[in-house]
């Protein structure tokens, strides 16, 4: 019991969802046992999608559903969601969403839409893997996440170097991204 409580003290992510414009899965990752079966997961995705569908979430938006806090953001036909418990710090969830969103934007070279996402699904799955590990937040900086995921396949050893190169290259193309990763600072 004590172990369980202490786990609660740590910021915990319950799931990260990337859905398309009809609420279908592009990539999802669940870290909590709140939704034990695939049908429970699908039902949750459906209710999240329906509840948020009407909103125009160009920037981070937020909603409560079944005692969960959901932060979300939509771009074109892609819907990004991050879910946490109802006593979670909303801004932490938002930071995770931000990291995920930035990383995907970098990976898709600013062409954030469903088809592009599916064509780069391997990279998106790697992204998810680098953001959260079993509910624990691993990394929240979008460019670092993208850097880790998009390691150039042609390079062998010395990958850490190639990461640096890669990130630099991405920044050169998308200077605006520098700003977006600063979520959480006072303006």
């Amino acid at each position, binding site marked *: 019991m004590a172990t369980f409580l202490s786990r609660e003290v740590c910021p915990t992510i319950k799931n990260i969802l990337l859905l398309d414009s009809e609420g279908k899965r592009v990539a999802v990752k669940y870290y909590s046992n709140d939704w034990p079966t695939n049908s429970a997961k699908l039902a949750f995705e459906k209710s999240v999608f329906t509840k948020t569908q009407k909103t125009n979430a160009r920037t981070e938006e937020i909603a409560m559903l079944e005692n969960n806090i959901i932060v979300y953001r939509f771009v074109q036909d892609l819907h990004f969601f991050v879910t946490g418990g109802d006593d979670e710090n909303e801004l932490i969830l938002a930071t995770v969403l931000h990291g995920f969103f930035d990383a995907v934007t970098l990976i898709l070279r600013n062409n954030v839409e469903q088809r592009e996402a599916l064509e780069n699904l391997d990279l998106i799955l790697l992204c998810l893997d680098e953001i959260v590990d079993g509910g624990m937040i691993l990394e929240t900086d979008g460019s670092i996440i993208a850097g880790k995921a998009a390691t150039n396949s042609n390079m*062998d050893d010395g990958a850490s170097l190639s990461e640096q190169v890669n990130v630099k290259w991405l920044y050169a193309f998308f200077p605006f991204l520098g700003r977006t990763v600063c979520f959480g600072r006072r303006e």
Partner: protein
Amino acid sequence: MAQPLVKKDDDRDDEEYSPFLGIEKGAVLQEARVFNDPQLDARRCSQVITKLLYLLNQGETFTKIEATEVFFSVTKLFQSRDIGLRRMVYLMIKELSPSADEVIIVTSSLMKDMNSRTDMYRANAIRVLCRITDGTLLTQIERYLKQAIVDKNPVVASAALVSGIHLLQTNPEIVKRWSNEVQEAVQSRAALVQFHALALLHQIRQNDRLAVSKLVTSLTKGTVRSPLAQCLLIRYTSQVIRESGVNTQTGDRPFYDYLEGCLRHKAEMVIFEAARAITVLSGVTTRELTPAITVLQLFLSSSKPVLRFAAVRTLNKVAMTHPMAVTNCNIDMESLISDQNRSIATLAITTLLKTGNESSVDRLMKQITNFMSDIADEFKIVVVDAIRSLCLKFPLKYRSLMNFLSNILREEGGFEYKKAIVDSIVILIRDIPDAKESGLLHLCEFIEDCEFTYLSTQILHFLGNEGPKTSDPSKYIRYIYNRVILENATVRASAVSTLAKFGAMIDSLKPRIFILLRRCLFDNDDEVRDRATLYLNTLGGDGSVVETDKDVKEFLFGSLDIPLTNMETSLKNYIQNPSEEPFDINSVPKEVKSQPLVEKKAPGKKPTGLGAPPTGPTSTADTYERILSSIPEFTSFGKLFKSSAPVELTEAETEYAVNVVKHIFDRHVVFQYNCTNTIPEQLLENVFVIVDASEAEEFSEVGSKPLKSLPYDTPGQTFVAFEKPEGVPAVGKFSNMLRFTVKEVVDTSTGEAEDDGVEDEYQLEDFEVVAADYMVKVGVSNFRNAWESMGPDFERIDEYGLGPRESLAEAVSTVINLLGMQPCEGTEVVPSNSRSHSCLLSGLYIGNMKVLVRLSFGIDASKEVAMKLAVRSEDENVSDTIHDIVASG
């Protein structure tokens, strides 16, 4: 980007471009054979793994055999030196979560990667291996993990730390051995490493309070780099504060300064975490709260919805306990009502309803109406509850609030939601006399089109009790009779009872009611016909001998004074032992078992039971009245004027718990002692209280009612009655001694006791009858009108010095409690920092004398409080008495 616009129109085309279109499990599993090729095509393999992951992600499952097959072929891919492919292999292994005997296959490959020169490999191999490993393997790799924790590459260190957090759940004894390394990692310069290390260190030490306290003490003084780690530290700090409890009498809370300092942190995440932590400190003071509220208020006007939501949600919670602290944010909160995000708007509204003042009610209601349709039922119920308490706070505003309730009653909604609205209206009708007529009409309109039988019957019952007392009762008949024509049997039966009540109360309506009741004789439901016949008989509609008026009314309105559970047991006994004799209701014991009195639900109104709906919410006053009237000795005392709140006469946790309720009658007072026996081994018999009234000269004891037996944990009551001069607010002090016979309980499970008992007594605390006991709190909806119409004939004005006081609010509430009157129009709330305050009170003094009081307070720099008291009443003696109360208080 015009592209998506076009796309939306032809989704079908779009789908054809999907790289996974027409993907099928069997085919992909076939494709997976490429993993076995001697010449690996890394690109091709990556694609196949992606396809497999896609299938898993879509919810597809692999059979055991399929999974094993895939797993084995995937392990072959470790031969490839392609980084991208290796990453996919890691992912795939984690997804497949192989069994223990399969894990062995990849262990050596993963361990090799763990020692690779490539940091990316090392970090990922650690995470994969820790995910799939079991205890035995863990001891083999422990050495590497310890090294990894203090690795100079932050990604590797984080991977090891996070894996440690997961492993702690399954192999705590191993992970605990790493605490030196983890401790070192806490000092890391890499932000996230510090965060992960802190989380792990705390989890390792969580059962050692002292260690946690030390950790917090050292870190709050040091530097914590990442905002996430700072948030963690704030959470740990609040934990330490909570466990250390209320500290020294200086009022300084340990670590509060640290939390307050975090409010000035550069990251919003940390500021918010700290503000939130402060608001939930146990027993938080206004002074501690203010800086947190201030930053939250800033967040309210942020451009980011997440920030606004977080702030308003926290303030909403604060408003439940400290409404005054949140009032400063009201203006910012009001602008949030029109927020695009409905969650934020709902939270803002419910917060405002908790903190709002009278002048803002109308505006607020207008804004709420617009958005009610947007939110879910559960939220609506919250809003309805908030509106009800608001209405009770500002009775003057009942009109707009009642209108609002009736409007939402007409809209779509589920049972719980509708019930909340109906309950609210019923409570408002009871507590605000002016609201009665309009409220009843709203309810009438509602039952015209109500799909819930339960609500219809409840409303009909309520209508029967309240309707006849209104100025024009006949207008309700139409609504009620419509039910008889249109509804199901349960509702029809209910409506028949309601019609009968109108007939019994109002003679002029009787002939017309009879016509309606006679029509009900042809109903096709037994219960409806039975009821109609019964009422026609009792009311004399069929020309037979009419029972006395009193009996009829008692039959119709009197509630069943027998606890339903007792009734049920008696009836069951009767059925089991058939006899020729009819069931005698007087044979049912009336003593209440096992339930505390106040929680007792009002019993159904008729012995026939069926269709008798539970009545609306009953006040405790009703319960008391019923108890007292069931005791023959007290029936001659007349109408109960007031019952006080229970006064505890024993300390908590003593052998016997006793409290007293003072019932005031015109010429008598009755003390009701509620006793509870908390010793399982004892049965008390012949329990009574000896009251010494030597310090209450005007009272003389006239009778008492002992309690026959008081078993363990079953509350019982004993009564003592006193006579006092009529209409005079006699005061005095009473000392009490509880007397009883103790019997040892032989068997605690059955409560069986020995035959012989010992007499014993138990000293109770003293209590007083004070002037406020003769004052009933009765609100007026419009104080100014009431004040004007009362006239200045018996007005008495005087000024008092109250001496130095803690605060103005404290002085105001002291005077209100002293007088025992109802504060009107929310004037009992004193805005913080104000130097003067006016308070309006109203009440009903014994002898049914209306009393209105205007209080004006002022406080000077030395906290000296002065008060002007103006009283208006219907009798100059009463006005003088009020001044006497204040002067002697």
